[in-house]
């Protein structure tokens, strides 16, 4: 038994030039204490929980990890392999839309023996990679190996809304691997970040590839993270021969047709629905919406993915059968955050006479899981039906803290507020303003025209302090975003 061990190490050594002993100078374990706000009692700071993830040292005395490892963090400690001392860390930059973060360490001693890792390119399909981390709770480094199975766009589940390039590997990736480096030939080729639970798929793990990492590192060079820019449009394939002829597209393998252009986004007023996109920054667009990039067919969005706020993208299009070239300045990120998971934000709310008002966003919808059909429609179709034009925020009566003043309000739970005393309620600020008015009655009208809730001002003024005390509500509102 003892004799076999060195042999195994030799085999490992032959395949992976940088072995586990060397990686131990770069790999760190991150213990995060976080506080996740409770959207059901938005005034409370939330429960404190802790978790473990991995990270690695990169150039500039920084540690790279996943955003989800350090989201909502209140206190972070970092451990080096073979060093029992905890080092206090701070979040330097965090990018929730691509699940990456950079940490700094207060104590300069920390970086004394560490080895910053370099980044490689996109590994080839079927090539071998090794994932390093601290899966399921251990305090010692763990290595798993596998091959690159697929390179494709994936939804990044941390935000739930953003899709970027991701690489699927069959090395075991488990909780605790998050943020750890995936290595090939001594270089980082990805950051392990998500996978499927065993009952959905076996041996499917994902890593964030280096184009996404490089973009993040470049974005923060100016000291702040500006998020991804986005064309804010949708397009459909152009496989159908009749559609190709009708739109006047020559040949049989290029172009996609624009379906929707979202107002408020970068393409609004420049690109029209029905335009056929033939080229993006000179790359020919296939009828399935892909472009050839670095020997891979990737969605045309990848061109925009690699750009930064303020840059431009060039589209060669066909409009009503005529060629044209459009320049889209990428000044704006995806304009709607409400359908993404939100982190490091305090829930916005207003409590008035025991009635709790909150804007509907992803966190809110997950916390309450309301079955109200109108609310679900407004939320689901907020972007595609341009609900945001009339209602930048969907203000919902989310909860009732029972008191005589609101004894008949329960039936309105999850109703969407339309007006208060005739003032349209488009944002949470509007409702605060309306409640600040001195009138005899506050008449709250809901979307769909049910009966209003009427609050007698004198009664509600009396009730407000009483309700705050009874339900330990520390503040009547938070409007901070």
């Amino acid at each position, binding site marked *: 038994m003892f004799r076999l061990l060195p042999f195994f190490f030799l085999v490992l050594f032959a395949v992976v030039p940088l072995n586990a002993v060397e990686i131990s100078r770069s790999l760190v374990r991150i213990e995060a204490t976080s506080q996740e706000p409770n959207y059901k009692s938005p005034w409370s700071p939330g429960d404190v929980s802790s978790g473990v993830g991995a990270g690695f040292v990169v150039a500039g005395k920084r540690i790279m990890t996943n955003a989800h490892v350090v989201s909502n963090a209140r206190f972070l400690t970092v451990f080096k392999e073979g060093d029992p001392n905890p080092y206090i860390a701070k979040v330097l930059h965090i990018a929730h839309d691509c699940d990456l973060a950079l940490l700094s360490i207060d104590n300069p001693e920390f970086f004394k023996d560490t080895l910053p890792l370099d980044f490689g390119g996109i590994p080839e399909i079927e090539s071998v990679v090794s994932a390093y981390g601290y899966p399921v709770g251990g305090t010692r480094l763990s290595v798993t190996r596998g091959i690159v199975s697929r390179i494709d766009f994936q939804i990044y589940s941390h935000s739930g809304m953003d899709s970027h390039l991701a690489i699927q590997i069959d090395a075991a990736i488990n909780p605790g691997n998050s943020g750890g480096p995936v290595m090939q030939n001594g270089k980082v080729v990805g950051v392990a970040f998500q996978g499927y639970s065993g009952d959905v798929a076996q041996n499917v793990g994902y890593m964030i590839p280096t184009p996404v990492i490089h973009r993040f590192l470049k974005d923060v060079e100016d000291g702040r993270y500006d998020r991804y820019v986005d064309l804010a449009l949708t397009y459909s394939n152009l496989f159908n021969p009749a559609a190709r002829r*009708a739109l006047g597209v020559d040949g049989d393998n290029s172009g996609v047709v624009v379906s929707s252009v979202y107002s408020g986004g970068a393409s609004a007023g420049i690109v029209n629905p029905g335009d056929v996109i033939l080229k993006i920054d000179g790359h020919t667009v296939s009828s399935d919406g892909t472009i050839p990039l670095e020997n891979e067919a990737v969605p045309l969005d990848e061109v925009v993915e690699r750009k930064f706020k303020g840059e431009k993208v060039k589209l060669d299009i066909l409009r009503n059968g005529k060629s044209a070239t459009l320049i889209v300045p990428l000044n704006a990120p995806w304009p709607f955050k409400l359908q993404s998971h939100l982190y490091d934000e305090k829930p916005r709310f207003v409590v008035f006479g025991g009635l709790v008002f909150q804007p509907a966003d992803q966190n809110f919808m997950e916390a309450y899981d309301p079955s109200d*059909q109108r609310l679900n429609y407004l939320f689901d179709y907020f972007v595609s039906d341009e609900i945001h034009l009339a209602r930048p925020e969907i203000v919902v009566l989310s909860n009732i803290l029972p008191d005589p003043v609101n004894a008949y309000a329960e039936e309105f739970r999850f109703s969407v507020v339309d007006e208060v005393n005739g003032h349209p309620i488009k944002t949470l600020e509007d409702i605060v303003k309306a409640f600040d008015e001195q009138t005899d009655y506050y008449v709250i009208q809901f979307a769909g025209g049910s*009966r209003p809730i009427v609050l007698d001002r004198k009664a509600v003024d009396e009730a407000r302090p009483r309700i705050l005390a009874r339900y330990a509500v520390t503040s009547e509102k938070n409007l901070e975003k």
Partner: protein
Amino acid sequence: MKAISFQRILWVALLFLCPFWVASAVTDTAPGASDASLSQSLLRVNSTNQVYEFFQPWIKKPPFSRRGIGALLDGGRILVTAELVANSTFIEIEKPAGTKKSSAVVERIDYHCNLAVLRPVDPAFVEGMKPLDLNGPLRVGDEATVLQLEPNGEIARTLGRITSISVGNYPAESGSFLLFKFGAPLQQRDGSFTLPAIHKGRLIGMVMRYDLRNQSADIVPTAVIRHFLQGLDSPTYPGFGRLGLSFAQLRDPQLRRFIGLEEPGGIYVTDLAPRGPASIAGIKKRDVILAVDGLPIDQDGNYEDPDYGRILFSHLTNTIKYPGDVLPFKILRDGKVLEIPVTMQAANREDSIIDEHLFDEPPKYVILGGLVFMELSRPYLKEWGAKWTSNAPQRLVYYDAFQNELPADRGRIVFLSQVLPTSDTIGYQDFDNIVVTKLNGRPIKSLADLSEAAKQPVDGFQKIEFEEDPKLLILDAASIEAHAETLKEHYAIPSLERL
């Protein structure tokens, strides 16, 4: 009006008699209710039903059968629930002892109130049998007997009590009618709970469903049955009036003070069907209804019924009154009291944007090159199962739930239900359940519009515009024409259109 008040007097008179009856009728064996004579009034009804497959509207799902017990009425008619015989392909009737079988056809059916009358194909089959009389109103606590049949033809009686009388939802979910709850441990014998219930040998209603856990049966009472049977010999069925109005209770004193409501009672109008009687008469959202037909409406929407006590006023408007009757509504609007006469009217399908049910009729569809178009109906949404409101496509569910808010000229919701992959629909197979706005530049407000617009291709193309992505689909008009027969053969579709 006169006939109604006469009936009311009659029922009041019956009520006076009730206590004596109850005292003497613990086992409900009054004269004329012996087993032998009762079995002369009952028939087993076996209905074979078949519904359309809404995801492939050109085919029917496998047939299934429902069995229940019908009550013989005057004129050789058999009363059953509508549920028993909805979508029937064949109805078999059988005498209790099971010696003889015959068939029957539906003479009148109303899915809203869940009732149907059947006529035997051979009138001689029920000759010599004894029709059941309809009983008058009952009170909570009165005893009744539900009748079932043993395999040998013996009558199985289950005695119980009326535990509540209220206006409640009927299975078709398209109306609220008077409903008796009847408490008794019923056994599952006949394949369904379509069973007659009697009191003193007279029919008090039809059981339509049974809640095993609470041992409680829902009974369609004679008040509803009488209304349903009205004018059975005349060709037109008056049906049940439908006000087309939703309301909220007015319990909140702050709201009552705000709208200046001093007298007790009143309900708040929250929603109106655009072409319903209430809307046509001029009742508006935010009106307060104080009284209907001179009867005060309380804050919960109840009135004092002489027979049944405090029940929802819709019993008055839909069951006591008939379409065509004019009811004065006392309304409070902007602090002023108005009287608005409302002419009751039966639900008219043409007035609704979305069909609530499609019993006994095939769903419409049009297939263009492999794109299957339908009109939105609730049965289509219900193909997503019991949790259809959360599982079915949200936009379609939203249209169904909030159809009253759509513009008055919206017309029917025509949508692409699915794409059958063909050479003409290459690249389109991922699209489904998206609403059509235009075809070849023409606005689409019904499947007939769509079928008509398809005859006018633009530059040789069928250009279908949608409310949401992909916004536009294009087909080659000549090519889909040429491939029509292949498509029919390939997917075994008898016809590419059913309007």
